[in-house]
């Protein structure tokens, strides 16, 4: 961006929009913790929430777990690589935990992302990650000992959990 374009951005507008995005991800995190059943989330709060734009760039991530900062930065581009955006529908939810496919730094951190539709078009992606307890962990010699490795797949289709993912 050129210096003159930067000068045209009103710092107050930037602050207002930035704070609105921050409050959205903070609220997402609060809902995640308060509604959760897992001790690791409801007590330890080992989870993080963020908003991404349609290209998969992070807009905002809440100040929950510093280690999660940027840990799922590649998740939306990895989802978009495998699932064309034009075939997505409201209520679709994507899941992944593979560090080699944009999600997390270890397999217990499971990442969920859902496109938000406004007037029939994807406007943004809310994303969360949560450290699941009792997630295999038979050692750390290689990734297969850590647990189930989930590539970015579609877990929900139009708000219905897909039977093929469950079984």
């Amino acid at each position: 961006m050129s210096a003159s374009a930067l000068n045209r951005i009103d710092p107050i507008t930037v602050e207002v929009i930035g704070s609105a995005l921050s409050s959205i991800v903070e609220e997402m995190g609060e809902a995640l913790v308060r509604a959760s059943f897992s001790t690791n989330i409801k007590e330890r709060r080992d989870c993080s929430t963020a908003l991404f734009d349609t290209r998969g760039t992070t807009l905002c991530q809440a100040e929950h777990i510093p280690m999660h900062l940027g840990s799922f930065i590649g998740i939306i581009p990895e989802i978009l690589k495998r699932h064309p955006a034009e075939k997505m529908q409201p209520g679709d939810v994507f899941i992944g935990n593979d560090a080699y496919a944009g999600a997390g730094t270890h397999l217990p951190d499971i990442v969920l992302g859902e496109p938000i539709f406004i007037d029939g078009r994807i406007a943004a992606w809310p994303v969360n990650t949560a450290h699941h307890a009792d997630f295999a962990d038979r050692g750390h010699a290689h990734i297969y000992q850590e647990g189930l490795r989930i590539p970015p797949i579609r877990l929900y289709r139009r708000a219905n959990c897909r039977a093929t993912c469950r079984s």
Partner: protein
Amino acid sequence: LRADFSATRLLALSSPIIGEIEAIVADLRRRCCAVWFADAGIETNDRRVALSVDMRYAGQNYELSIPLPTGPVTYATIDGLAAGFAAAHQRLYGFDAEDEPMQLVTFRAEATGIVRKAELRPTADAGPDARAAELGRRNVWLSETGAFVSCPLYDRERLFAGNHIEGPAIVEQMDATILIVPGATATVDPYLNLLLELP
């Protein structure tokens, strides 16, 4: 006038607990009515009791407060609590977990007594002379004078409407100490507020 009462009982939401809910509600009502309203002198017609239950899905750590359906405790009460919790969960978190067992954690009663608003009456003017409230004098170091000065001390309880004090002075009261700096003046208004005018 309001007071809050609570009873914590961890119960699974199901029909066999109707008797238990009845007993808890009866105990909360007794604590509100026979004890608190009676002590506070609230007449029967001026008594209100609102009952609610803190509920969660079994396994959660955070409860949502759900109003207890009015009337006698029946199967409809259980259904009403379940529907109320599902609706509150949906409203707050955007979803509800169908078929997940629900728990009752804490029963709460909010007892409200309707009372007349306190009347504020202006008091009679006692004139500007505040000497009757003087407690003595004390040497006080003030940044305005850069040295110790002898300050009169006043008792707030003995200051009356119209009394006038010139700074420097100190007013003592049960819960605060008021410093009137040099050049400032304090006047007591008809409602016994101390109005300070700064130089």
